[in-house]
C-alpha cells in the first residue's frame, strides 16, 4: 500500500474521480505515518491540510495567531495519535475536522465540559464499531457526498455552511437571517437527510 508522493502526484493528475482518489490517497499517507513514523508523509498531509484548518478556524472567528497555534496543535495530535487512525472508520479529513472542532470548543468557546463529553461519545462509538455494518465511511461514499453537497438548494447550502463554518446555533442563524427557528431546523434537517442518503445509497 506504499504510495510515494511522486507517484501520488502523477495519479492525482490523471484520475478522473479525484475525490475518490483523494480519500484513499490521504489514508495511505496516514497509514505510513502511523506504521513507519514517515515524516515525509506527515509533511505532505501538513502542507495540504494546515492552510485549510487555518481557514476553517479563522472562519469560526479565531484570530490568525491563535489559529496558527491551534493548527500546529491539531497536526501534532495527528502525529502523536496516528496509531488510532482507522481508515475503515473515517477519512483523514473527518478525523482532522473532529480534532480542529474539539480544539475550537476547548480553547475558543472556553467550554471545558464539552471535550470530555465528546470524548466519551467517541469512546462508546469505538466500542461498537466492529459490530456495525452500515457506517464505514468508504471512499465511494465521499464522492457521492461531494456530489450531493453541490446539489443542495441555495438556502440549504447556506445554512449548512453557517453551521459548519461559522458554528452558529439554530437560534443565531434564525436571528441573522430573519427566518423562523422552525424553518432553520427543517431546512437543515432536509439538507442533512439528502447528504446522508447520498452516503448510504447502494452503488
Amino acid at each position, binding site marked *: 500500500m506504499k504510495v510515494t508522493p511522486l507517484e501520488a502526484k502523477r495519479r492525482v493528475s490523471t484520475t478522473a474521480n479525484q475525490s475518490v482518489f483523494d480519500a484513499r490517497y490521504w489514508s495511505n499517507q496516514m497509514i505510513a505515518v502511523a506504521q513507519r513514523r514517515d515524516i515525509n508523509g506527515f509533511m505532505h498531509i501538513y502542507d495540504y491540510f494546515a492552510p485549510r484548518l487555518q481557514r476553517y478556524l479563522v472562519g469560526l472567528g479565531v484570530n490568525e495567531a491563535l489559529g496558527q497555534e491551534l493548527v500546529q496543535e491539531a497536526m501534532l495530535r495527528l502525529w502523536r495519535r496516528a496509531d488510532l487512525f482507522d481508515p475503515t472508520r473515517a477519512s483523514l479529513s473527518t478525523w482532522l475536522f473532529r480534532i480542529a472542532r474539539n480544539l475550537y470548543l476547548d480553547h475558543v468557546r472556553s467550554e471545558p*465540559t464539552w471535550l470530555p463529553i465528546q470524548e466519551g461519545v467517541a469512546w462508546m462509538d469505538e466500542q461498537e464499531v466492529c459490530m456495525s455494518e452500515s457506517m464505514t465511511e468508504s471512499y465511494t461514499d465521499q464522492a457521492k457526498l461531494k456530489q450531493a453537497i453541490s446539489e443542495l438548494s441555495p438556502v440549504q447550502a447556506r445554512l449548512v455552511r453557517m453551521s459548519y463554518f461559522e458554528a452558529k446555533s*439554530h437560534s443565531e442563524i434564525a436571528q441573522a437571517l430573519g427566518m423562523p427557528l422552525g424553518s432553520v431546523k427543517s431546512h437543515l434537517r432536509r*439538507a442533512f437527510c439528502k447528504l446522508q442518503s447520498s452516503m448510504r445509497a447502494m452503488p
Partner: protein
Amino acid sequence: MTPRHHLDEATIVGYAAGALPTALAVVAAAHLSICRKCRESLRDAEAIGGLLLAQQQAPAVPSTTAREAILAQLSTAQQDPSRKDYEPVRANDPDALPAPLHRYFGPTFSALRWRMVAPGVHRIRATQITNGNLMLLRIGPGKSVPMHSHQGNELTMVLRGSYVDALGHFSPGDVADLDCDITHQPITSPGLACICVAATDAPLRFDSWAARMVQPLIKL
C-alpha cells in the same frame, strides 16, 4: 434501552459542527451515549464536516517558519499512549446517570438533591452552564403538566418513568427535540415519578417557561 424518539437531524448537525449551545449539547450527548442510531448519524454529520474542510480552497501554503516549527517538534513529540480509558458506562447500574451528565449532576440518582418548585415537581439546575439552561426535573406520577408553548429550542430526555403527550409515549432514553410553536400537554405515567433532563437555549425564556409550567400545578 432502544429509544423510539430521537434527536432532530438539525440538532445532530449542530452537535457535529460544534454549534450547539452547551446545555443542548449535554442533553444531546446523554442521548448519544445510549443511542446507536443517533451515533451513526453523528458520524455522517462529522463526515460532512470533514469533506467541507478538505474541499475549501487553500489560501496559501504553510510558511517556512511554520513548517520548520512543526518539523522541530516531531522529533521530540512522544507518541501518545493509546487512548486513555474512558470511564466505562455503568449501563447495568440502575442508579447511574448517563455519563455526560455526571459533571453537572453527579454520577447517581440516589445522591441527587432535589428542590421542590411546586407540589409534585422537583428540580435541580446545573449552575456551571452559561450557554443555555440545563436542569433535571422530577414530576410525580400521574400528573398532567399544563400545556405550554415552546420558544427557542428545548431538548428533553426521559431518564426514569415516562410520559405521554400528543407526540407519543416517551420512555427512558427518548428525547423530545422541540422548537417554537409546539404546544403539548405531557401526562406522566402512573406508578413512577418521571425524571427528565431538559435544556433550553435562551436564558431569559427559561424562567417564563418554568413559571408557565409550574404555576397551574400550584393550584392543584
